[in-house]
């Protein structure tokens, strides 16, 4: 049993289903990557796992506990953290305040966690008094991930974290994600940049039309000629 499992998920935004029975699971200390063509339901699957989409069928379990009907806010309290693709920082607040807001639910002293985030993303320490809205795209993503880490989550979900950042920044960000995974967090990533993301994936899911097409380790998927041909551009 994996730590977080979305099993046989079906549902959409009214009308036609976008998810047609896909299953996504991730364990602690593991990176799971969801890739697939546009409109495959990658982000929708992520939203469903976080409770931002009501499932018509299927279930979501966290550490064996059924959380299918739990609201996103309650999932935050259950140590799940989500980094949206866009608008993922408080633009009018400083970097430090962004991190503080990430720790909003914590009553204990979170200065240790903030120090850890600053160790992970040293540039943020330098820019902590600057408004998040004034930072570059890559730095904003770091703020966004840092904010999510402030709750000390056991599951970290990233929706296309590298959208709109340069290749160098992307590599750096993936490096950080590996470091995060190594602290024992379950990391789930939805990615457009499939090749680079699968390189760091312990487990990869290729979704097509809201269904699982291929599921294997990142390495195996990269080696699979069919996956390469259809989804990784040869």
């Amino acid at each position: 049993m994996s730590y977080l499992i979305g099993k046989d998920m079906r549902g959409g935004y009214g009308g036609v289903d976008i998810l047609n029975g896909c299953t996504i699971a991730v364990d602690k200390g593991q990176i799971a990557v969801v890739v697939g063509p546009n409109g495959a339901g990658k982000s929708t699957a992520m939203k469903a796992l976080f409770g931002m989409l009501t499932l018509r069928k299927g279930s979501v379990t966290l550490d064996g506990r059924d959380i299918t009907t739990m609201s996103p806010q309650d999932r935050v309290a259950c140590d799940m953290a989500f980094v949206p693709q866009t608008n993922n920082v408080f633009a009018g607040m400083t970097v430090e305040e962004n991190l503080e807001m990430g720790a909003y639910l914590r009553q204990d002293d979170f200065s240790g966690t903030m120090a850890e985030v600053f160790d992970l993303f040293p540039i943020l320490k330098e820019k902590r008094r600057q408004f998040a809205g004034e930072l570059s795209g890559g730095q904003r993503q770091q703020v966004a991930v840092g904010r999510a880490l402030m709750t000390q989550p056991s599951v970290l979900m990233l929706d296309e974290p590298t959208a709109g950042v340069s290749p160098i920044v992307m590599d750096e960000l993936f490096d950080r994600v590996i470091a995060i995974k190594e602290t024992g967090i379950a990391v789930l990533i939805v990615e457009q940049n499939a090749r680079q993301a699968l390189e760091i994936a312990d487990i990869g899911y290729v979704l097509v039309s809201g269904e699982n097409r291929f599921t294997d380790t990142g390495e195996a998927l990269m080696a699979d000629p069919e996956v390469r041909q259809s989804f990784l551009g040869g």
Partner: protein
Amino acid sequence: MELLNTFALMSNYVFVPALAYGSQLALGALGITLVFGVLRFANFAHGDLMAFGTMGVVLMTYWLQAQGVSIDPLPTALLALPVGIALAVGVSLLIDRTVYRFYRRRRAAPVVYVVASVGVMYVLNGLTRFIIGPDDQRFTDGARFLISAGDFKRMTGLDEGITIKLTQALTVVVAVLMVAALFWFLQKTRTGKAMRAYSDNEDLALLSGISPDRVVAVTWVIAAVLATVAGTLYGLDKSFKPFVYFQLILPMFAAAIVGGIGQPIGAIVGAYIVAFSEVMLTYAYKRALMYMGPEGWGPDGLMQILSTEYKFAISFLILVFVLLVRPTGIFRGKVI
């Protein structure tokens, strides 16, 4: 000497009154801007919330006066303020619970809230007039002047005096204290930061575990406190009349929008811009010009740009101008 007399004259009739009026508007506009930032709608009922809270203060003041309680030279209304604030906070939370929460759960469009707030405005307006009546209420007591014109003339030997009413001085002092407290709250406290976060990015605030109900409730409490204090200061300075308070939403909205709605600092700057424009454009400059011109000369007319009856037109013009030229306002707020 003539220049000093002109200066004294202008201070007396323009600077001091506009400063006091601007401070009253600022407190009101801050409430509007906070409600807009957090609840995302233009609250048309703000003027009547002000009237409702002030009504509480007026009635309590009358009661205290009847009991012979006094804090002379300060006005008794200061003692009555907590009662008015409690009343305004109570009614705000009640209205949120019964009206706005319903729309919030349905994630209604902002315009729906605006229309709902117009309804709330009529209800509050009617309630206030029903309880205290539509007439003018004068509830100012205590000392009248901090510096009277006579004192000033004796001190300086000028022909023109500067009068500073106690209520004007009180307005400025209280406004400064309130604004300082508000900014400290928004910048330094956990709840204040949560309010800013919610206003900045509602979805992300939810993902951070910030409870919308709590943020909304705190916002109403602050708006009600600011409205009641603003209304009381305005009433002390002038008088309390429900209809006048209803009309005050125009200059208050103009102030919030000129400064950039959603930006607290903008509301303050905007309030002074509106207040000074109103006072300066409706002031009769005849005497000031007489001092400036040669001895014995004077203009024939009053040299008044607009008659005081048109003072609301000024806020309206400023409002339209800003919305056309720079809809985000001076401090780049949201576009309404």
